């Protein structure tokens, strides 16, 4: 029953989406609001149908309805109930349902919010959103049908991939997809702007909050992915420059560039062509991301590929890119710059440089990711492009970006006089240099680490200078200190939200620097009762224990730790043996701390529990990455807060 109802609903939704997209576009071209109205109704209906389908899927999972092939493949009678819900998006077909549902929700919000205030652009925005929805609905009905019937109905299912049985699984795809799909809206507005020729600021101001929200969710998704990788995958790292990780990182990079360069367009009416190109690139990269995950052309730990779906995505990506860039080329004449600049030393330049670095990083990551294909095409030789490459080439770019984070917000528009430069940057520069000296004196010898810390100090100082000056100005008007600060932040929430986000990025950057520069590790085989030492921690192997869980068999090793902040702790890394998986999954254990984490991975072991191989890591400052994420959240929230219209 369920497969038929669900499948039918999706086909209806597909038809409605196609009709709606055509109706909205035709209504806009021929000036018939009735058509646009009907497209709106189609959007509402699609949303209702997709919500119903999602609910149906969740229901099928909760009730162990193995007549649905997707349910049988991704769960079994032993799967705990909360993972049965998250299993909905645990594999290919379900992930598309989630994506489409989010798109439909966003379309609904666009209808509600912009129906009246974006008269000219709205029909085209609606058309584009419905068009993209139609594509995903097509994928859900043809190459990756989620409501396929399985006959005969098996007694038990296959089970969820054990790596996905984790809290990260509940949140990571959701956040990531909210980010990816969120960028569809600015893209739709950009298309509408190009088609109607209204390429001035309206489409940008209308989508400001959309952009920040999408950017934030993408950031959150990436951070959660890092967290998941760190505490599940058992390799002690949070980012591997895996092709699919890169595919999610690239739209983040261009999204960040876009976030910044629209500020130039808002203030100075420049870069209109560039902003349109950036948002098109960002959206194209989100599609590229889903393409890469599902096409199987690059080997990746994330890949969950199947059949012809890759072809569908490539065709759609090609159509989108060619049409969008074609529209851009068509409107080229209208997009000349309208502003002027007095000096190369100005905020405009800083922002431009920011864009250069971010886009260069994007292209570097892109080219590195597809280079194995290029190499094979040209030389016939397979090469790998992995972490050592990406770390080496990206670090200088990111250090440059950190520097710009300090310069950008304070340097003057149009022309920064020497006086302006001195007032804003003298103290921070001094502090940065002092920090470099202090760090060097403390024994840090890695040039990159010293530079990174010095730049972080510089940026933190610039932020402090600005906040202090702003607060002081308000205080002179008679306000008390805490109130002054609070009102400063709220009155100029965009600016200070941005500052807090920058602060969050700084903290993350420090965490990355610390973990790359100062982490240590060792691997050794221990007899029961024997201990090993690393960085002041003494770790003793106490034995093994076996246990039977609901859907797997677990061997747990006991390690007692002394020293550092983990005195007397017992760590229990394990190996989980799932019947449906050919080899065991490593389950790591760790003791997190503010400055360092002790991380233990169980390797090989003797059946009788007499010895075990253990890999120990002391990772430094990794917690700062997660803390930075929290700061980022606060900053983004502040930036999207409704603006206070009261004066002072």
């Amino acid at each position, binding site marked *: 029953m369920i497969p038929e109802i669900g499948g039918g609903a999706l086909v209806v939704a597909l038809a409605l989406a196609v009709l709606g997209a055509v109706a909205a576009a035709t209504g806009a071209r021929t000036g018939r609001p009735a058509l646009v109205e009907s497209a709106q109704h189609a959007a509402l209906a699609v949303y209702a149908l997709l919500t119903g389908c999602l609910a149906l899927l969740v229901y099928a999972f909760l009730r162990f309805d193995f007549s649905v092939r997707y349910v049988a493949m991704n769960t079994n009678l032993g799967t705990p109930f909360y993972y049965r819900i998250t299993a909905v998006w645990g594999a290919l077909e379900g992930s598309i349902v989630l994506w489409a549902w989010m798109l439909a929700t966003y379309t609904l919000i666009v209808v509600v919010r912009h129906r009246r205030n974006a008269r000219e652009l709205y029909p085209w925005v609606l058309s584009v959103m419905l068009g993209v929805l139609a594509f995903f609905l097509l994928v859900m009905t043809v190459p990756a049908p989620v409501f396929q019937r399985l006959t005969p109905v098996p007694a038990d299912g296959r089970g969820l991939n054990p790596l996905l049985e984790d809290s990260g699984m509940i949140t990571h795809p959701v956040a990531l997809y909210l980010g990816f799909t969120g960028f569809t809206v600015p893209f739709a507005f950009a298309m509408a702007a190009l088609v109607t020729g209204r390429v001035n600021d309206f489409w940008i101001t209308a989508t400001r909050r959309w952009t920040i929200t999408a950017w934030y969710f993408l950031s959150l998704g990436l951070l959660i992915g890092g967290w998941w990788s760190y505490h599940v995958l058992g390799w002690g790292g949070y980012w591997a420059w895996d092709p699919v990780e890169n595919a999610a990182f690239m739209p983040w990079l261009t999204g960040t560039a876009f976030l910044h360069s629209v500020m130039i367009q808002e203030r100075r009416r420049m870069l209109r062509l560039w902003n349109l190109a950036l948002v098109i690139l960002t959206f194209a990269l989100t599609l590229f991301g889903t393409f890469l995950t599902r096409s199987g052309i690059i080997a990746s730990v994330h890949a969950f590929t199947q059949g012809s779906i890759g*072809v569908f995505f490539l065709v759609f990506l090609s159509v989108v890119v060619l049409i969008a860039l074609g529209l851009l080329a068509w409107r080229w004449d209208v997009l000349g710059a309208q502003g002027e600049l007095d000096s190369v030393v100005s905020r405009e330049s800083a922002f431009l440089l920011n864009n250069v670095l971010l886009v260069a990083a994007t292209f570097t990551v892109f080219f590195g990711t*597809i280079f194995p294909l290029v190499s094979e095409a040209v030389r016939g030789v397979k090469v790998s492009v992995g972490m050592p490459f990406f770390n080496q080439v990206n670090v200088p770019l990111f250090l440059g970006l950190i520097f710009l984070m300090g310069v950008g917000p304070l340097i003057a528009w149009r022309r920064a006089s020497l006086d302006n430069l001195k007032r804003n940057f003298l103290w921070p520069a001094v502090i940065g240099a002092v920090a470099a000296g202090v760090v060097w004196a403390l024994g840090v010898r890695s040039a990159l680490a010293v530079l990174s810390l010095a730049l972080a100090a510089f940026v933190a100082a610039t932020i402090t200078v600005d906040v202090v000056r702003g607060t002081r100005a308000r205080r002179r008007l008679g306000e008390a200190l805490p109130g002054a600060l609070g009102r400063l932040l709220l009155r100029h929430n965009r600016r200070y939200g941005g500052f807090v986000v920058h602060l969050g990025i700084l903290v993350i950057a420090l965490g990355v620097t610390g973990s790359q520069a100062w982490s240590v590790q060792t691997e050794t085989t221990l007899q029961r009762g024997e201990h090993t030492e690393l960085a002041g921690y003494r770790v003793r192997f106490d034995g093994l224990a076996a246990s039977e869980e609901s859907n797997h068999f677990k061997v747990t090793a006991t390690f007692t730790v002394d020293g550092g902040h983990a005195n007397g702790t017992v760590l229990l890394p394990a190996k989980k043996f799932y019947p449906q998986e050919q080899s065991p999954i490593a389950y790591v254990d760790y003791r997190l701390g503010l400055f360092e984490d002790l991380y233990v991975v169980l390797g090989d072991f003797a059946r009788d529990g007499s010895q075990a191989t253990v890999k120990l890591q002391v990772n430094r400052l990794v917690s700062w990455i997660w803390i930075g994420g929290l700061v980022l959240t606060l900053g983004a929230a502040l930036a999207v807060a409704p603006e206070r219209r009261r004066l002072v």
Partner: protein
Amino acid sequence: MTHRWRWLLPMAALPVLGLLAYGFVLDPRSIPSPLVGRPAAAFTLTAFDGSPLALETLRGKVVVVNFWASWCNPACYDEAPVLERAWQTYRERGVVVVGVDMQDTPEAAQAFIRRFQLTFPNAPDAAGKVAVEYGVYGVPETFFVDRAGTIRAKHVGAVTDDVIRGTLDRLL
């Protein structure tokens, strides 16, 4: 001047899209082996039945070296009878089938051997050194070594009767 150059923008996307399309014809997981055409690395292991198993002693015969594991289901399970058949069919003609068991436990491996009633020599590669010597990156993988000791072919994945026949007929 900008009038026609602007169309370069959408055109610029085409080579990239073309490259991605090309990716469909490639298999990112199949790695061509640099060892084909080179002398097979010597190894000395102790078979499960206790007898020594050294590649040099087999010089002059055609050797089929098969890397497997008991947890490698279904591929190794599919090819085990094929290999046993090959051993029975070709042993009179100077072909030796040798199995190297990697990343495995002795009990599970011996159960596997009993299950498929394999009579050709099988030895465990406990430290994984032989696997690395042969550039093995997954199971099963099968190498065909000619009488002079040179690796002439490598097959990744389960071997079939056709593959065995085709390769051995070439080497004999």
